[in-house]
């Protein structure tokens, strides 16, 4: 029974964090129909930013969060204007963006290895409190609670952005119908660019906590994270990035339960989830998944 309680509560914490992991991918697709296949790589970059900040400069790794946001803006805005409008004018923006961002992901992975080496890196556990916090008799590392807290804060912030700000409202308009948004005078490119940067920033922020949740980080984690994010996004949302929370929780609980009872099979979880969901839920949120012919 103890094991089950541990798996469930741990799964919820893990799941809240993974909602943050997935939400950037969802946001970018929702607003501009671009599939950021380099998503996992940006998460890894966020982890390395935290590593730099803490191991190299000696600050608390939480400073990786603002660093990630700034880096997302510095990389994101030029990247958006360089490729996205072009992609949207092409014949098949979905597939072309898929391949293009795949290329970007490969480049990022190579640069990460060149910059940091291929070994695993971890973050100092004392930085976020070396102890454990207990709930219902189960104890989890402080860093997990920090991760879940930051994730919830980020999700709430996104919700507030969507519902309380003019820009957020404009973003939702674009998500509902790009053409109509254009017609009503919204500067679609500016709002989309902002959403793009936000998506990258959210990935980076998730990356800051990643080494704590997984134990360490290495450049090759990117692909697995992208696929996992895909699974999370597909399970949960119905066109609403905030629905990613459901996907994250399903993934988190599934993973923790697998790790507790059948640990050698636990790395199958995201892939099986993705395959099952995509085959039984044909109208996924990422546009129409199933051909009409």
């Amino acid at each position: 029974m103890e094991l089950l309680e541990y798996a469930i509560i741990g799964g919820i914490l893990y799941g809240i964090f993974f909602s943050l992991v997935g939400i950037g991918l969802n946001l970018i697709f929702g607003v501009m129909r671009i599939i950021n296949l380099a998503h996992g790589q940006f998460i890894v970059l966020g982890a390395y930013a935290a590593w730099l900040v803490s191991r190299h400069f000696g600050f608390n790794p939480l400073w990786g969060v603002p660093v990630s946001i700034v880096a997302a803006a510095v990389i994101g805005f030029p990247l958006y204007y360089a490729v996205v409008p072009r992609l949207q004018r092409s014949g098949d923006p979905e597939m072309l963006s898929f391949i293009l961002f795949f290329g970007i992901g490969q480049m990022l992975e190579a640069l990460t290895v060149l910059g940091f080496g291929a070994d695993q890196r971890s973050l100092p556990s004392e930085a976020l409190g070396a102890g454990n916090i207990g709930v219902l008799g189960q104890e989890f590392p402080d860093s997990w609670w920090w991760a879940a807290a930051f994730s919830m804060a980020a999700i709430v912030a996104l919700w507030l952005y969507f519902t309380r700000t003019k820009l957020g409202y404009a973003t939702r308009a674009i998500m509902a119908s790009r053409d109509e948004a254009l017609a009503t005078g919204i500067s679609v490119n500016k709002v989309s660019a902002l959403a793009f940067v936000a998506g990258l920033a959210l990935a980076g922020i998730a990356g800051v906590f990643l080494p704590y949740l997984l134990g360490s980080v290495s450049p090759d984690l990117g692909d697995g994270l992208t696929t996992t994010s895909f699974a999370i996004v597909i399970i949960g949302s119905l066109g609403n990035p905030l629905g990613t929370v459901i996907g994250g929780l399903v993934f988190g609980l599934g993973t923790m339960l697998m790790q507790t009872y059948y640990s050698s099979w636990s790395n199958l979880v995201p892939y099986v989830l993705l395959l099952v969901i995509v085959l039984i839920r044909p109208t996924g949120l990422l546009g129409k998944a199933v051909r009409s012919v």
Partner: protein
Amino acid sequence: MSDRSWLKRWRSGLIVLVLLAALFLFLPHVYGNESLLFTLMTFIVLAQGLNLLYGFTGYLPFGYVGFFGCGAYATSLLVLHTSLPVLLCVLGGGLAAVVMGLILGPLLRLSGAYFSIASLAASQILYYVVSNTNLADITGGPYGLKIEQVYAPAASYHTMLAVLLLATALAAYFRVSNFGMGLRAMKQDPVSAAMAGIDIVRARLITWLISAGVAGLAGGVYAWNLSVFYPEAVFTLQISVFAIVFALFGGVGTVIGPLIGAGVLYSLYSAIGISTPQYFQLIYGLLIVLLVLFMPGGVLSLFTRRGLRVF
């Protein structure tokens, strides 16, 4: 097209096949590293096999390596557990990949990116299942398989050449036949193609199975040639990535595109990629970005843009 005689239509294809055969039969005499040539052939086959699916139907299987690994394992297990001659085991590898393709057939209902990611998930599942320690008794688990008893570098080299010729012949067939014309129509507009009388579901499935079979055969011969391998060697995502990049670079939907793409890029890889794989990765990552932005049809599109027909 139906007016031209069989020989006329197949002329370009036959020329390519003869040149390929001559090239790879001749090269080992002047270039000592047969193992490199073998791997080069393997990647040309994979690029061509991927081209059969992506170039003619628009489906991009990110999990293409799954069929390769399937073939490798099926062949090895047949060698270990039956007394069938090696060549039959290789055929068995191809067959196993086709069966896997049938099992994964429902994926073809998905479109675009969904299909790509789902196929990636499927191949990863295969990898994790095969390499799981609990199954070590059956599949060797993380320790891999050894089939040294059939090790034969020369025979496996020639068999891979045969598979390469088969894959290229299939591409030529797609290019000149009515079946291939139907595929092209289907890729451009599935609804219109259906209304033209093309059985889209069947055409897609057949192409998918052929593509899977090619990868399976390649996997079987590869396993035979290596004769000792770990699961990563035949299931790694990098193999899918290379096949995709090579095919895209050369130009999909053609016969010689994958040949050029794999030939050029794999040679580059063997020059710089084995010692410094990150630089190679950086280069081909950049290449993909530039291709999508400026040359989505690959190198061959430089010719087609000028009105020259390429095969």
